[in-house]
């Protein structure tokens, strides 16, 4: 019978950490609970008594409390309003069993100690799975490897665009894909110049070389001269998988498919970008010829995709966003680079010629 209550140490530690995190996440309750012996246990006091040291299961006191908790867990869970158990420290820095409860327990219901180890009741309230964070800001700094669909730019100018996707070549090297006018500054940036996340505009125009995620490798020149036409506005920056991921932040479509598809009239599409995050629209026209205004001048683009949306599909800073199908496959369709000021019309290069220009493929799912 005793073996039934034996819990693998790793499992116990994980349980402990989960419950402890849950207790922490329940937020502020530790401070708010009125009265009771355990009212004095706050996040601060726990930190204070340990003097900043981190205790794990290698500490004999903690290990003993853990095995005790494992043995008594099932029994404790049968008590009214008990939501979980954990191992922590009392205000006096003694290893203790924490009993997490939905509401203040009846006096005497929870034992003060078990086999000499203190028991502390902590009123956490109902513990629910945290809703997905709504606070993701694609214009901000992201821990490395950075997601795609977030702020980027060449370090040489105060601007911000969007990381389209992670692409790879035949040798397995990976690159960040975006527009020429984001990574190569409309043909002006030097090969090898740094590409940063976030773009310099999003660090208040302050140049932070440590934000580099890659170096400009190649770009397709934009032709501005009268009588010339373009098909693509794109550039790649050499990166690596430790600095560049291949999925959008939470709330986006995640990883795009590696397999691309051609744009079709009426196709439902989506994009994730630095300014407007996830938006959806519909392909209104293909084979489009569009006159696009840049800071350098006007350029004519042929064989483009026109996306229409009743609301804003694209805004300044979304340039470079990957246009993908609006389904779970998220097949890449195009590379967004332009639009009208309302953002209701967006222009995308077909993805095929973009990838062909650098002999790369989408490094997706």
């Amino acid at each position, binding site marked *: 019978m005793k073996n039934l209550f034996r819990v693998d140490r790793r499992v116990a530690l994980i349980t402990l950490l989960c419950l402890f995190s849950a207790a922490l996440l329940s937020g502020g309750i530790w401070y708010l609970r009125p009265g009771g012996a355990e009212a004095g246990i706050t996040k601060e006091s726990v930190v204070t008594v340990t003097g900043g040291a981190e205790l794990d299961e290698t500490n004999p006191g903690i290990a003993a409390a853990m095995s005790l908790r494992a043995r008594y867990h099932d029994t404790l869970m049968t008590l009214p309003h008990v939501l979980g158990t954990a191992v922590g420290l009392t205000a006096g820095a003694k290893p203790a069993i924490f009993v997490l409860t939905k509401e203040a327990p009846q006096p005497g219901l929870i034992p003060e100690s078990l086999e000499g180890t203190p028991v502390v009741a902590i009123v956490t309230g109902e513990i629910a799975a945290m809703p997905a964070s709504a606070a993701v800001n694609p214009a901000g700094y992201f821990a490395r490897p950075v997601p795609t669909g977030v702020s980027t730019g060449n370090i040489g100018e105060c601007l911000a665009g969007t990381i389209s996707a992670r692409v790879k070549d035949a040798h397995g090297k990976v690159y960040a894909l975006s527009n020429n006018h984001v990574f190569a500054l409309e043909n002006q940036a030097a090969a090898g110049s740094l590409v940063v996340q976030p773009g310099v505009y999003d660090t208040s125009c302050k140049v932070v070389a440590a934000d580099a995620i890659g170096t400009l490798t190649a770009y397709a020149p934009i032709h501005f001269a009268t009588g010339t036409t373009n098909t693509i506005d794109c550039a790649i920056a050499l990166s690596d998988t430790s600095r560049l991921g291949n999925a959008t932040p939470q709330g986006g479509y995640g990883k795009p498919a590696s397999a691309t598809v051609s744009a079709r009239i009426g196709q439902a599409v989506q994009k994730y970008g630095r300014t407007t995050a996830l938006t959806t629209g519909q392909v209104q026209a293909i084979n489009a010829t*569009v006159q696009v205004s840049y800071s350098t001048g006007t350029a004519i683009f042929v064989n483009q995709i026109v996306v229409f949306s009743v609301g804003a599909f694209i*805004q300044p800073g979304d340039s470079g966003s990957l246009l993908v199908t609006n389904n779970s496959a998220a097949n890449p369709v195009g590379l967004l680079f332009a639009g009208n*000021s309302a953002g209701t019309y967006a222009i995308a290069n077909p993805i095929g010629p973009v990838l062909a220009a650098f002999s790369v493929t989408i490094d997706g799912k």
Partner: protein
Amino acid sequence: MCGKAEKNIPVATLLIGFLLCLCAHCAKGVGVQTPPEAIGEVLARETPALLSVPGVVGTGQGLCDGRPCIYVYVCAMTPEARSRIPAVLDGYRVVVKETGEIEGL
């Protein structure tokens, strides 16, 4: 660069536009004849002329009521754009959309 659309269009312009439309309908027989030429070819041939109309910023191939049609994107709907953009091109319906200027974002 992109001028505001004029609100007061002279009646004469409207009338001319209406007559032009009517003529186009008579000549081309919209929705009756099967266009003899592929839309891509028509677009390629007609786009330079369309882009030369002041205010036109783009053209594209779309679908209107399930049939291939030509979209013409204009910076602003000016009387000139109205009068110089045909309603039909080689049997394909032309739909004009006012987008404003298209900029690299």
